[in-house]
């Protein structure tokens, strides 16, 4: 039908133009990312000439140096622990809460729902300073009582903060799903003699698996990539650090030290898990976005 109105040549020109623009955009995204991968196996001397030359060989020493000398190995372990712990805690707390808030009417349920919705508007980075001060005061108090403070520079506390600040978004996403379920499921379970607890864990949560996977994906990305809270709560020079913070320090230091190879190797170490995960689940992620499209 369109052919009747547009002549063939303008149609073809239009198509060509569209492809041209799309391919240009794809290139501006893919080339820099690929460039970092190639740079991570270049020797330091290769960084002073034309940036577009291919690496002379596979210089794996960059990764070895990053892992050992730049302590990327330690940072990686910290990042894995923090992310896993925060995800586990988040699911354990958010799932029952989202279920009850979405499916039960009780005194204050409206208020709590509104409260968590309002939480969506509070950005963690607005309140990172008071969180830091609160933990710092807590440490001072603990020092007085127990002789030692442990709230700052502690990866477990960091995981708790991550999980807590992810609650509004997670509860919002999960409640959205729970609200769509028919009440018949629970009624049938109650008639069969199942209690509230059994019904929730054995009937409802298994059904919610797709939403749970979406929640895990989004929060994995945000916990793994986060660096402002991590930088603030673990500011001690000798204390533990997560991968992005360690790398940021390295990047700021390399401006004088010029160890490009190690820096790009570090970038690859952070980027690789997220890229592999993305390639495995890209469908889930881009679809889940329609549901969780409000995340910033």
């Amino acid at each position, binding site marked *: 039908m369109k052919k009747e*109105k547009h002549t063939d040549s303008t149609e073809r020109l239009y198509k060509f133009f*569209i492809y041209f*623009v*799309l391919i240009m*955009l*794809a290139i501006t*995204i893919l080339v*820099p990312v690929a*460039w*970092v991968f190639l*740079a991570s196996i270049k020797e330091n001397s290769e960084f002073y000439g034309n*940036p*577009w030359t291919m690496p002379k060989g596979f210089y794996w020493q960059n990764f070895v140096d990053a892992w050992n000398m730049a302590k990327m190995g330690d940072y990686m372990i910290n990042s894995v622990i923090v992310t896993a712990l925060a995800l586990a805690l988040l699911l354990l*707390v958010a799932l*029952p*809460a989202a279920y*009850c*808030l979405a499916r039960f009417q*009780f005194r204050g349920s409206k208020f*709590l729902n509104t409260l968590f919705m309002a939480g969506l*508007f*509070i*950005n963690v*980075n*607005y*309140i990172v*300073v*008071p*969180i*830091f*001060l*609160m933990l710092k005061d807590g440490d001072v108090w603990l020092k007085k009582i127990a002789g030692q403070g442990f709230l700052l520079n502690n990866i477990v506390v960091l995981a*708790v903060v991550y999980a*807590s*600040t992810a*609650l*509004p978004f997670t509860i919002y996403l999960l409640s959205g799903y729970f609200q769509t379920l028919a009440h018949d499921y629970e009624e049938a379970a109650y008639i069969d003699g199942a209690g*509230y607890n059994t019904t929730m864990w054995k009937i409802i949560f298994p059904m919610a698996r797709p939403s749970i996977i979406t929640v895990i994906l989004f929060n994995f990305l945000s916990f793994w*990539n986060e*660096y*402002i809270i991590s930088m603030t709560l673990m500011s001690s020079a000798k204390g533990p650090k997560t991968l*992005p913070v360690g*790398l*940021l320090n390295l*990047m700021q230091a390399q401006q004088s030290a010029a160890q490009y190879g190690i*820096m*790009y190797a570090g*970038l690859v170490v*952070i*980027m690789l898990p*997220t890229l592999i995960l*993305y390639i495995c689940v*890209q469908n889930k992620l*881009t679809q889940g*976005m*329609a549901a969780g*499209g*409000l*995340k*910033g």
Partner: protein
Amino acid sequence: MKNSKRRSGFLAVCIAPAVILFFIFMILPTLNVFRMSLYEKGAYSPTETFVGLKNFQVLLNDSNFIRSMQNMILLIVTVTIITFAFALIFAGILTREKIKGQNFFRIVFYIPNILSIVVIAGIFSAIYKPENGMLNSIIGLFRDMTDPILWKSESLVMVSLIIAMVWQAIGYYMVMYMASMSSVPESLYESSNLDGAGRLSQFFQITIPLIWTNIRTTLTFFIISTINMTFLFVKAMTSGGPNGASEVALSYMYGQKDAGLYGYSMAIGVIIFLFSFALSAMVNKVTDREPLEF
């Protein structure tokens, strides 16, 4: 009777942990932002003194703060306009036209969104490097490069930030609008084709009005999250430099905390909170239209 007791017990066990964590780590700090803005508290003085609105008075005359607000507003406005214009146009093209490799484009455009801002800062430091960065070496093909373009100099640093932020955000919004645009029924386009409407008028008179509710919500959230994104990018890419030329409100707040001026830092936090509420209220008001249904 017994049953209702069990019910409330179950509800309490389920909800209490979430409410407690949410209260300690989100509500309490938020209230503290407002409370502490009225006090003078420093890293080296253990006591707090109530000073009323003095922090805000100092703030109004602090030219560094005013510049950081200006920078933030500049970034919000330009990044929002550029990202939304491009995201909507590309999404419109990709859903309306039969494009080969549509899935490939969708996958690629989404990649920047899964990268840490630290990684993006690393990538852009390689792009913007003056002597042999990617961008300058490409521009060097067209013009003489004896004095290279300094992308992170005082005059260009904001442009560099805008490019990086648009690069990061565009794919995410495009994929999202593709999802909502594909729900517009095909029959509407077919009947408008019969009426002789071209692609452009279809885009502005069918596609945009029908997904307006979606655009409106995402616009509000985008603006709120851009306030935060300006901070993340500035902190990782420029640290506010050179000479504070790229400082934004949140990074200035963070800097005041590092300087040990906690009360003053929180007064900036209050302004940012109020600003973000006012801005989202304004956007909501301006974009209010009669919702269309299909």
